[in-house]
Structure formats: structure tokens, C-alpha cells
């Protein structure tokens, strides 16, 4: 009997993850199967062993030191006792979550002439069936055997020498693996790709900038559409009921000099709703038309069902880098409402369709033009979270402006193409916060203030908790009040988003901090608490 159980466990160690398991991930909250925990992008877990009442007993259970020289931004996946994580610049690792024994490490040979704006980072993998999918910094999508780490297939998304790269976790669904790409400062041309998970054959490509003659192309002056970027570097969400993929797109290029790309620049800075089978666009919503401040809308789209003006509505939520919080009807992309959640000086507000009503003189200038928020935005790529029990949306907020500069913008393949930049405002003492937003009103229910602009993702749980990084601390806040309940000095900056899982009846919370992955669990009741 005992032996049988052991055998079962051993087999389970590299179990299959068919699509049906991803689809019904709610049935197995002990695992963390996709980048955001489930397809909805909520980063919400129903695990409730760790609660607001006992979270003060959380303590480090084990640590994985990575020795990476890069910012460590991975979201680990946990599947039946195996943890899969990425380590920048070029590794994927599978470890036994019980013993921390390493099953395998895949190390990719990467070129040393990469063209990157922001470090050789990676944010995680996807799993499907017996495979692990990884987007490499040199813009390949790679399928690894989940058991051995051996390469099953390897396809080039685009030429890294032209400024393409990949940093985000892919999203596996049905028989496909969907991925975005990065390279928004290099005059690339953005896309979202889907590949056959078995063979690596490309199933479809959605170009975020339409071809000549296609609707939307005329929103780019002249040939500027060819080098307009609109990259897709943060993982999207999926609604299986409507077979729709939701994905954010990035800034138009060149970032700060809009003169060479007059027009709205579709589909930069959008949420895109695509048919999961064909990649065809169902709708788009553009947050910042003709952006000149680098306000990518590469956010995890958060799908939720919320009470809204007396009815339950299927919505997609975003706290956008441009400092507005948006609630969109996710069936048709229609704007329901929106409101600033951080200081902004670029728009008077949003019109009935959600289009910003611009203030005068907001463009970057040669001398520098002070605008809030800064180019890092009122938030950035860090995962927000939505808790269906509190019906609150949690955002990592950056309160900071910048002097924006306009520079020359001459395109050369593979070269930085940004047309300006920014500098910070010496008269400002920037700060950050975690803010809980009520989706129905868009108003701030509570905030937890942070000494410097927030930089980490958020996890929320049925234990009435919000977990996030607060610079060099890992903190748990009360999901209803924002009260600080617990913190742990990690001694390393947290740029990643936490996850939670459970093993053998014990709930764990994990987060990448500094160069290490820290894994926490409750200390036994009897032991003294701090």
C-alpha cells in the first residue's frame, strides 16, 4: 500500500498537463499552472490555509540561490510537486518542490550581441501535456521535454539582430502555445504568435500593426507603420467560453518622437481580443492613441465578472501605465468607465468612448517637458491582482513624473529607435503604493504607501491576503483594509510577482527576491512567533 502510494507520487512527478487541466485549473488550486495562476489573469488563489489571522506565522522554508546577474523576475509554475522556473539570462530549471533536488536545467547558448532595452530577463514558462515552453532572450520559442529538459523543438520568432527578443511567459491553450515578443525600442513590428504545441509549426500570427491596405494602417503616417513596434511582451489572458485571447500591446516607435508617425498608431497601446483558433481580431481598445511617453499597455488583462450598475458584467480590467484605471466590456471591447488612479497631467479625462481628452502641450520637447506619470508609468508590467471575494483590483502604483525629451529619430535596422528620453524631476520625492480599486466606481478603497515607486507584482488569496514586494521586503496586506499584517526582509529587491501552491496539505508562498527564490510556509502553531 505504502509502496503503491510512493510509486504514484513518483509517476505524478512528471504528470501530463492536458489542456483540460489548464481549463479547469480552479479544481486544483494546489498547483500553479499558468503565469497568472489561471487563464483569467487574476493572480488569485483559493488556497486559504494562510489567512489574515495566521500570516504572522509565515517563515522561510527554503531558498533557491540562482547566482544570476540579471534582475530575477520569474513566476515559477508548480505542477504535481515539480517547480519550473526561468533564470536570466538563459536557463530553465525543473526542481522537486519537496526536496528541492534538481531534475534538470536547460541552458541556452545565447549571442552576446543582443539588442535589449532592459536586461536579459525572463518571466516564466508555460506547460502543456508533457512539455514546457520558453521564450528565449534571443527571440526563439522553445519546447522542452518536461521530464528531461531536452529540446523538442525550437523556432525563431524573429531576428534578434533586428532588435527582437522575448522576455514574457508564453500562454498554452488548447493545442497551441501563444507568445508575444519584445523590442519596442528598436523599430520592430509587433506580433502575437500561436504555434502548434506538438510540432512547433506556426498556426497564426497577429501583427499589431496592420499591413498596407488593411484597416488601421492609415493611422500611421507614410511608412512609419513598418517600424512602429507595438510589441507584446507581457503574457495575456484567455476566456475559453468565448474562445478569446486578450493581450496587451506596447508603445509605438520611436517612443518619444511622434512627429515621424502622425496618427493614432493602431494597434499600439491596446488591449486586443483575438480568436484563439485563428488569431483574428475581434476588437481592440486603444488606451493611449499616438503615445509619445512610452506608455505601453503591456499589462496582464484581468478578466472578471463584476457587479456593474445593477447587473453582473463580464469585464476586462486594467490599471494602465498612463495612470487611468479602465473597465471594459470584454465581449465587445466597449468602454464602461475609467478614472485616474495616480497623478497624471496629460489628459483632462476620458470621453464616453474612453478616448483621452488631451491637455495642451504634453509632447516631449528638446528642452524637456514635465509630465506625470514618468515613462515607467503609473504602473508597469508587474502583475496586478483581482480578488473575487473582496471584488477589489490591486495595483502596484508609481507616483512619479519626468521631464520628457524629444530627440532625433532615424531608423536603422537593429538600432535603438526611441527619439528622445526622460529625466527625473529633482524637485519631486517620488513614492509608490499598493492601491485597492473598486471596479464599479474606479475609486481607491485603500492604499498601502511605499517609500519608492512600486516595482513588484501582486498575488491575492482567499485567505483575505494581498502579497507583494515592497522593495527589499516581502509583505502581506489585509485584502479588505490594506493593513500590513506581516513582512519579511528579503535583503534583495523584489521585481517579480508571488505565487502560492500547496503540497501534502501545506500551503506555500513563493517569490523571487534579489537573486534568490524564497519559499514560505506557516511555522507550526507551537513555535514562538515574532
Amino acid at each position, binding site marked *: 500500500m505504502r509502496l503503491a502510494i510512493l510509486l504514484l507520487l513518483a509517476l505524478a512527478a512528471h504528470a501530463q498537463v492536458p489542456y483540460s487541466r489548464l481549463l479547469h485549473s480552479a479544481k486544483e488550486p494546489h498547483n500553479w499552472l499558468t503565469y497568472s495562476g489561471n487563464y483569467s489573469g487574476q493572480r488569485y488563489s483559493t488556497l486559504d490555509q494562510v489567512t489574515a489571522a495566521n500570516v504572522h506565522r509565515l517563515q522561510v522554508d527554503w531558498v533557491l540561490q540562482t547566482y544570476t546577474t540579471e534582475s530575477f523576475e520569474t513566476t515559477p509554475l508548480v505542477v504535481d510537486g515539480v517547480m519550473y522556473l526561468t533564470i536570466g539570462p538563459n536557463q530553465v530549471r525543473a526542481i522537486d518542490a519537496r526536496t528541492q533536488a534538481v531534475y534538470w536545467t536547460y541552458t541556452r547558448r545565447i549571442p552576446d550581441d543582443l539588442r535589449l532595452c532592459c536586461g536579459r530577463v525572463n518571466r516564466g514558462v508555460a506547460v502543456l501535456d508533457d512539455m514546457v515552453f520558453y521564450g528565449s532572450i534571443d527571440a526563439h520559442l522553445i519546447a522542452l521535454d518536461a521530464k528531461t529538459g531536452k529540446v523538442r523543438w525550437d523556432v525563431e520568432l524573429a531576428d534578434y539582430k533586428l532588435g527582437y527578443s522575448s522576455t514574457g511567459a508564453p500562454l498554452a491553450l488548447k493545442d497551441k502555445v501563444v507568445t508575444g515578443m519584445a523590442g519596442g525600442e528598436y523599430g520592430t513590428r509587433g506580433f502575437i504568435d500561436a504555434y502548434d504545441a506538438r510540432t512547433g509549426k506556426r498556426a497564426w500570427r497577429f501583427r499589431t500593426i496592420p499591413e498596407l491596405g488593411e484597416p488601421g494602417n492609415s493611422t500611421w503616417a507614410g511608412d512609419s507603420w513598418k517600424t512602429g513596434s507595438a510589441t507584446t511582451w507581457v503574457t495575456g489572458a484567455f476566456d475559453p467560453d468565448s474562445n478569446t485571447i486578450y493581450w496587451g500591446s506596447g508603445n509605438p516607435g520611436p517612443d518619444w518622437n511622434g512627429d515621424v508617425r502622425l496618427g493614432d498608431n493602431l494597434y499600439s497601446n491596446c488591449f486586443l481580443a483575438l480568436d484563439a483558433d485563428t488569431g483574428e481580431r475581434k476588437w481592440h481598445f486603444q488606451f493611449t492613441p499616438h503615445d509619445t511617453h512610452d506608455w505601453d499597455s503591456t499589462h496582464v488583462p484581468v478578466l472578471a465578472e463584476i457587479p456593474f450598475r445593477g447587473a453582473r458584467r463580464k469585464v476586462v480590467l486594467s490599471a494602465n501605465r498612463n495612470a487611468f484605471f479602465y473597465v471594459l466590456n470584454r465581449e465587445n471591447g466597449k468602454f464602461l468607465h475609467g478614472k485616474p488612479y495616480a497623478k497624471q497631467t496629460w489628459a483632462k479625462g476620458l470621453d464616453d468612448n474612453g478616448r483621452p481628452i488631451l491637455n495642451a502641450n504634453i509632447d516631449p520637447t528638446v528642452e524637456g517637458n514635465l509630465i506625470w506619470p514618468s515613462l515607467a508609468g503609473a504602473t508597469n508590467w508587474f502583475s496586478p491582482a483581482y480578488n473575487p471575494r473582496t471584488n477589489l483590483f490591486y495595483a502596484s502604483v508609481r507616483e512619479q513624473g519626468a521631464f520628457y525629451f524629444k*530627440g532625433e529619430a532615424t531608423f536603422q535596422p537593429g*538600432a*535603438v529607435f*526611441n527619439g528622445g*528620453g*526622460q529625466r527625473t524631476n529633482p524637485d519631486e520625492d517620488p513614492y509608490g503604493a499598493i492601491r485597492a480599486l473598486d471596479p464599479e466606481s474606479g475609486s481607491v478603497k485603500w492604499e498601502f504607501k511605499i*517609500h*519608492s515607486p512600486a516595482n513588484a507584482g501582486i498575488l491575492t488569496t482567499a485567505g483575505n491576503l494581498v502579497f507583494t514586494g515592497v522593495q527589499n*521586503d516581502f509583505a502581506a496586506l489585509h485584502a479588505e483594509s490594506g493593513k500590513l499584517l506581516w513582512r519579511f526582509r528579503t535583503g534583495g529587491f523584489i521585481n517579480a510577482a508571488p505565487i502560492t501552491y500547496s503540497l501534502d496539505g501545506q500551503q506555500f508562498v513563493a517569490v523571487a527576491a534579489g537573486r534568490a527564490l524564497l519559499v514560505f510556509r506557516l511555522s507550526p502553531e507551537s513555535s514562538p512567533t515574532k
Partner: protein
Amino acid sequence: MRFAAFLFAAGLAAQQPPAPLPTSPADLEQGGKLYRGSCGYCHGPQGDGGKGADLAKPKLERASSDEQLVNVIKNGIPGTEMPGAWHMIDNEIRQVAAFVRTLGKVEARPVPGDPANGKQVYASAGCAACHALREQGRLTGSLAGPELTVIGSRRNAAHLREALLDPAASVPDGYLIVTAVPLAGTAVTGLRLSEDTFTLALRDFSGRNHAFLKSSLKDIRKDPRKSSMPSYRGKLTATQLQDLIAYLASLKEPS
């Protein structure tokens, strides 16, 4: 083919001594434009730093020679956020490098006054109680304020005058004066050493270090317009002041 061409170019470069950086106003202007487009967003438009390192200083640790500077710009610094400028042709890189060199220099306008006399003023006014100078390789004085060994390369005379008469007008980064008011006990004022969401460390004016959990504090007062350096307005004669400024302006990176 490309590889062969590269070898050929490398061979050529090895035979020739590195050419000096361009100096013509047109080259510098072009370098400035390129800098503003490609570097300024990290290093700041004046090179005073931001996401990138401070380049507006006389000596760049990783780029003391022009050749090193060109190399750093071209190839970046592996393992840091400093990218290689793949988009620039060699000539452009040299123009940027030439421009970067101008960032670290302050205008060489002759400063009136007698530096030798100023040196004596420095000693008698007690500046060494808070400032250090490196002389013959040895650091003497105190590190309560910024080291002044190459202050003349970093700051112009106008700034030096202001620093002496109105120190609070431009407090350099890292010299914020804070007052921590504990829930129980007396308030402590001093130089902020570090601060985050949960902790605060400061050094009081008697030189003692203090560390606080913010949860034990009732209030934290910050005064960015306060300096721990006394104003020398009215304490020095006009001649003494001018001589002292001339002395400080003469403290330069040996070239």
C-alpha cells in the same frame, strides 16, 4: 564574408594608434544630439545620471582612456543595464564619446583670487572638520560632507560660491537632513543614511548613528532645504571668500 571583413578591420586597427576623439564644434554638436537620443534617457540630458551612471564627473571609472570610453559605448558593460550602441557607426560613437568628455568638464574660465591664500582660509575656517581632501594619496579630514579632492572639476565657481554662502540652496544627493520623532523619547536630527518603507537610519550632528523601525516613529520630518554645513556669509571677508573659491576651483583631477 562578414567575419572576414571583421578580421581585416581588426588587423588594421591593431596597426594604427587610436585616433584622437574629434574636437570640431560640428562633431560635438552631432555627438550631443546622438547623446540626447540614445544615452540621455538613462544618463540624464546633462549626464548627471538617472537610470545610468553619472557621466558628469571628471573621471569615469570604466572609461578613463578615450579608447576605453569608445569601447564602453560600442559594446556596453556586460551584466549591467549599459547597452552597446549597436545602432551607431564608428564615427558616431567617436562623436558621442567626445561629447561625453565635455559632460565631465566645467568651463575653464579663470577664477579670480589667490589659491595659496585660499588654502590657508580652508585650514583656518575648519572645513576639514567636515570635508576630506586626498593629498599625496592620503585622505585627510572628515567624511561628514562630500570629498572635495576634485571639486574644481565637478563644480563651477558660481556653484562653489553658492555652496559657501547658501549651502541649503543646492544640497547634493545623499545629504538630506531628517528628524525622527519616536513614539516615546526625544527627537533625533541628522543626516539621512538610508531609508525604505520600514526603516530609517541617520547620523546625528555629534556623529552617532541611529536606526529606527518606522513603526516606532510618530513622525519623520525631512528638510531638503536644510544643510548641515554652516553658511560662511559674513564669516569670511570678501577677499578670503574669493581666495577660498579660487583654491577650491584649483582642486582638479590631475590631467
